[in-house]
């Protein structure tokens, strides 16, 4: 995309003006016009400290930002990158501001609040943490991150989101663009833990260079009012991606759309989704693989277990082949845990509740073989929490 970053705001403005009939977007804009706070920025810190959260966004101000500028890693506020017009070719390179109203809001009102991370060729960085918190009722949190992983490099990111119990009626709207170079690796764990008045819209765009490896893990287990999560990964030659998402939905509406586009020769992807629903939750999960590259391969696995009769799970696997030599498959199933399995476990001394919990744990456990040990522990803790909450 050859659009200049300076144009982005203008495009967004025009696009938004055409959407004046969209009540929700109007409401968000009104809120954004009222409150505008300046980001608070901390001084430079060492690489070791980046291991913990290098940046946290509380409501709409950056409460903490750790600068890094070394031969292996750059971490700076995105805003500075845009103002200096340095390295900006990657900003808004994977998304357009007039593609969706939420993206337009980020472009026009987001003030480039977010991080720019660049991992230099040959370096291995991680895990770095980002943290999004909402504390004020009515907050609209807009986030835009850009991560660049140069050739032969690696970046691991842990992104956690949370809102305080008494912060009501919150919007979290985010865009993360990830550009991964040749023979590089990108791992990202996203953990959502909001409250039930939160409305979430998030988009993750990844461009995966030749021979690169992308591992995405997404876990949400909190009640939420409305969640929309979009992941789009474009894969070049011999690149591969695995995306695993676990949603334990209670109350509220959850909609996830994960798309991988196998553009290059022998590109491959596996999309795994596990859904548990209860308490009137509605979960919709769309997984899509588009195979354009010669010999590209993909597999989708969507499994859902409704834990009660009040909730709804919709699972949509989509396979799209543009050639004859591609290999695409999917496996989708929705149904409760088998009686036979529960019975077996009870005859080994577990009560029904314990048997259910063990089955739930197994069901949501993600293959963590490729995840570095520090992040693995985090995911295991999150899964523990999920299983604990599922206890009847």
């Amino acid at each position, binding site marked *: 995309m050859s659009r200049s970053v300076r144009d982005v705001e203008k495009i967004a403005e025009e696009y938004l003006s055409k959407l004046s009939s969209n009540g929700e977007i109007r409401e968000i804009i009104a809120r954004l016009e009222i409150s505008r706070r300046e980001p608070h920025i901390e001084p430079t810190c060492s690489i070791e400290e980046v291991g913990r959260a290098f940046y946290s966004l509380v409501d709409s101000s950056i409460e903490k930002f750790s600068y890094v500028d070394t031969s292996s890693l750059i971490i700076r506020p995105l805003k500075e990158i845009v103002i200096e017009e340095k390295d900006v070719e990657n900003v808004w390179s994977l998304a357009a501001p007039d593609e969706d109203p939420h993206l337009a809001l980020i472009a026009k009102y987001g003030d480039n609040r977010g991080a720019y991370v660049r991992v230099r060729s040959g370096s291995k960085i991680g895990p770095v943490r980002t943290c999004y918190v909402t504390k004020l009722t009515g907050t609209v949190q807009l986030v835009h991150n850009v991560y660049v992983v140069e050739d032969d490099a690696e970046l691991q990111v842990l992104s956690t989101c949370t809102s305080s119990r008494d912060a009501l009626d919150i919007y979290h709207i985010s865009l993360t663009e990830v550009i991964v170079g040749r023979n590089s690796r990108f791992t990202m764990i996203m953990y959502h833990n909001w409250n039930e008045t939160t409305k979430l819209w998030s988009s993750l765009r990844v461009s995966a260079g030749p021979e690169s490896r992308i591992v995405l893990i997404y876990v949400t287990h909190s009640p939420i009012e409305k969640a929309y999560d979009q992941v789009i990964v474009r894969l070049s030659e011999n690149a591969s991606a695995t995306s695993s998402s676990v949603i334990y939905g209670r109350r509220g509406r959850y909609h996830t759309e994960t798309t991988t586009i196998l553009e290059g020769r022998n590109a491959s992807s596996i999309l795994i989704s596990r859904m548990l629903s209860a308490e009137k939750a509605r979960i919709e999960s769309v997984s899509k693989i588009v195979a354009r590259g010669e010999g590209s391969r993909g597999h989708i696995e969507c499994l859902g277990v409704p834990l009660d009769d009040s909730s709804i799970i919709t699972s949509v696997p989509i396979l799209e082949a543009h050639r004859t030599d591609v290999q695409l498959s999917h496996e989708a199933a929705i149904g409760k845990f088998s009686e036979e*399995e529960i*019975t077996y476990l009870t*005859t080994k*001394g577990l*009560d*029904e509740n314990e048997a259910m919990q063990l*089955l739930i*744990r*197994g069901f949501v456990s993600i293959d963590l073989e490729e995840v570095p040990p520090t992040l693995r522990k985090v995911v295991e803790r999150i899964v523990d929490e999920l299983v604990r909450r599922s206890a009847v």
Partner: protein
Amino acid sequence: MSLIIEDLHVESSGREILRGIDLEVKEGETHIIVGPNGAGKSSLLYTIAGIPKYVVKKGRIILNSEDITRLQPHERVRRGLCLMHQFQPQIKTIKVSDLENILISKFGINELAVKAREILEIDNLRNRYLFTNMSGGERKRLELYLTLLTNPKIVLLDEPDSGVDVDSLVKISEVINLIISSSLTCILVTHRGDIVNMLRKVDRVHVMCNGKIVESNGKDMLDRVLKSGFRKICERLRDKRE
């Protein structure tokens, strides 16, 4: 631990499957149950283990003078009664080690299980998923080990010898002999004489046909029955009914 079964009538899916079973197994005894396919051997063990699908219409199950007829399966396990299933479900999401850890934390470590782990070569199976893509012998060995992890005082073994090769059979019978010499009470269902001949002690053999025990006797009866088949003995039951 002793087990007494009195006039047990059981239905499943609306069908009468057990039609008046009486059985007494004293503490430390080893009893063998044989009978043709479909006789109700597994159903009897399922009912003793408390699987809800097997509905007791009449009669009682008494464990150490406590009536356990209405107890849930896990409550029976807690009292020391555990079933080794004939068929195990493949649970492709649960690792063997996960269930193992849970059972150890619930029931503690017991010496018998530790020995069984060695003999049954469980270490190779620990990272696999429960019974998933396991061979016949691997399943039986694992199931026997998991049964012993519950620290039982009475075990119900449903065809521990079916579908296993000679080497596995030797290992499995070695463990059953440990069970016997630890003075555990044991009920074993089998179709074959060879495992029985490998056991250090057999107190009684029962023949089941069509939901009933038709004959109970010493070990000598087994060779006779296995040689001549069940037809005659089962027909006698039919004649009696007519």
